[in-house]
């Protein structure tokens, strides 16, 4: 893995030396060759980041900002990965996981459980290369801690449908090494109950919560937060807003028709509602609307022609 990280840093150095205006950045081979070498070097997570980064080139008027920030985080990870032995234990674990160190599920499940009533606050499906990735965001009723449960499906395979948004699950959660959000659900002690909602924050408080998680791991690119906000428009772009400020909605106004945004607009009718969103550096993705009598799952959903149970 060390050789892969050294090569990544050399590649990053070349990009910074030559400049982001260089036409080579628009060629897929520039990114794909490096991603393939990182896979060979057992740094699969970094390879995925490189592939996602390739998709940012030319994707928006401000793509140079987005690409440069990601190059900086890749540098941070490669440096941390090359000096992993000198990092404190939890940070070393977090870096190892973010770089691509594989952990066996059995080892995770053998760890100390975090038992709580876990509220399934939101779900999102994202296609990454040829794999559909489903994220379920869980929040502990007692601890207030977030947990992330992932499931993966290749073409015609099934995603996890055992976690229903808006329900609460009394269960053990086993976390991956480090201060990880990523977890596995262990023993379940009762059938899920509904409806339940996580506590919500103002937008300013939500930013503080996200910032606190990013201090620990600045390379995280998706984080959950539950806020009370309404939809608003800023220069033709949709945003979530309240009296404390606003957050842009990811890609709204530029991508194809967004069913989740339309559902949020229809259900809220422009009023403030409790929402769980996924924060990303480029904007937030609304995942669920928490109403007094039910939770409406509005997160991006996998194409049913690709996965068999979406």
């Amino acid at each position, binding site marked *: 893995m060390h050789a892969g990280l050294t090569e990544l*840093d050399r590649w*990053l*150095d070349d990009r*910074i*030396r*030559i*400049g*982001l*205006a*260089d036409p080579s950045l628009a060629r897929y081979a520039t990114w794909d060759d490096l991603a393939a070498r990182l896979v060979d070097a057992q740094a699969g997570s970094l390879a995925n980041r490189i592939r996602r980064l390739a998709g940012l080139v030319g994707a928006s008027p401000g793509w*140079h*900002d987005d690409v*440069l*920030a990601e*190059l*900086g*985080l890749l*540098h*941070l990870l490669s*440096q941390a990965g090359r000096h992993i032995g000198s990092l404190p234990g939890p940070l070393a674990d977090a870096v190892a996981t973010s770089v691509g160190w594989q952990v066996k599920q059995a080892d995770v499940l053998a760890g100390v459980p975090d038992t709580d009533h876990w509220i399934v606050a939101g779900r999102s499906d994202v296609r990454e290369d040829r794999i559909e990735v489903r994220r379920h965001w869980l929040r502990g009723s007692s601890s207030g801690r977030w947990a992330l449960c992932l499931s993966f499906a290749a073409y015609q395979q099934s995603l996890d449908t055992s976690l229903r948004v808006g329900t609460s699950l009394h269960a053990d959660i086993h976390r991956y090494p480090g201060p990880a959000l990523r977890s596995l659900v262990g023993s379940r002690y009762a059938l899920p109950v509904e409806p339940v909602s996580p506590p919500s924050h103002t*937008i*300013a408080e939500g*930013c503080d919560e*996200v*910032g606190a998680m*990013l*201090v620990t791991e*600045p390379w995280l690119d998706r984080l959950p937060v539950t806020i009370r906000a*309404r*939809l*608003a*428009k*800023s220069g033709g772009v949709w*945003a979530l*807003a*309240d*009296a*404390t*400020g*606003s*957050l*842009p909605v990811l890609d709204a106004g530029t991508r194809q*028709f967004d*069913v989740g*945004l*339309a*559902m949020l*607009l*229809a*259900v809220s*009718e*422009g*009023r403030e509602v409790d929402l769980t969103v996924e*924060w990303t*550096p480029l904007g937030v993705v609304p995942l669920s*609307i928490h109403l007094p*009598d*039910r939770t*409406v799952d*509005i997160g991006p959903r996998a194409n049913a022609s690709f996965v068999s149970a979406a």
Partner: protein
Amino acid sequence: MKSVDEHWQALVTTALLGTDRREPPEAPQLIADLVADTARTSASERMLAQVAATTAVRRAGVVPGPPLDELAIPDGDDRRPCVPAAVDRWHHITVSWPVLEDEWMLTLVTAGWRIAPELLPAMLVRYRSDPVRRTRVMVGAGSTGRWLVGHLPDLAARHPNATVTPEALAELPELPIAPELAQLVNWPGAESGGVLAQSLEDGTLGHPHRAMLINLVARVRADALLDIAEILDAVDSISAGYGLATVLGDLATTRHRMLDELSTSSAG
């Protein structure tokens, strides 16, 4: 003194040109403190360290944008939105029993429900090119529907000037049913179910008649549905008609539950 955001803009400019052509900008103290412990000889290495540190600082310091004006809200609607079970049922029938879609909508409107708002985008997209069904959706949606389309032009009708008659709006479309089966539409469930079960078991009716039989179950009187479902469920599992009986039984059960969820009594 430069702010972190101003420094970031300077970094982006340098990154566009490349450090072969431009030296990295001088970092503000906050960033300089973070990268001071690194021994970096080349301009590109110093630049990468600054980019990494500045990105980490900016992300951890995520702050909201300015407050924004509120949207005007739609006019009020006294009707209650249909229950969550009816929402789930609509999704189910669009996948499994589209023959029931018209009845779902007409029953909802007649019983005095409003379409649950979370259904509106999917319905408006699905019926964009169907003036009759789209008009029914707009009736069931009320002011929220018009308000929503005003904000999201992607939901607008494909044929906004199409004419829809009140009759077409209020009536279920006629479904083709063979004359010998058509009489069963008004029979009590015990009798029509018995005839269907017997005909499926002895092979008089089979898969060639599937479409016609589905139309029949979609139009039999509502109080016959439970009996029909029960009788079809009891068809001999080794008979040739067992599979089709199961399918028709599922349709009868689905339609019964759909009508129950949308009944006036459920509306309270």
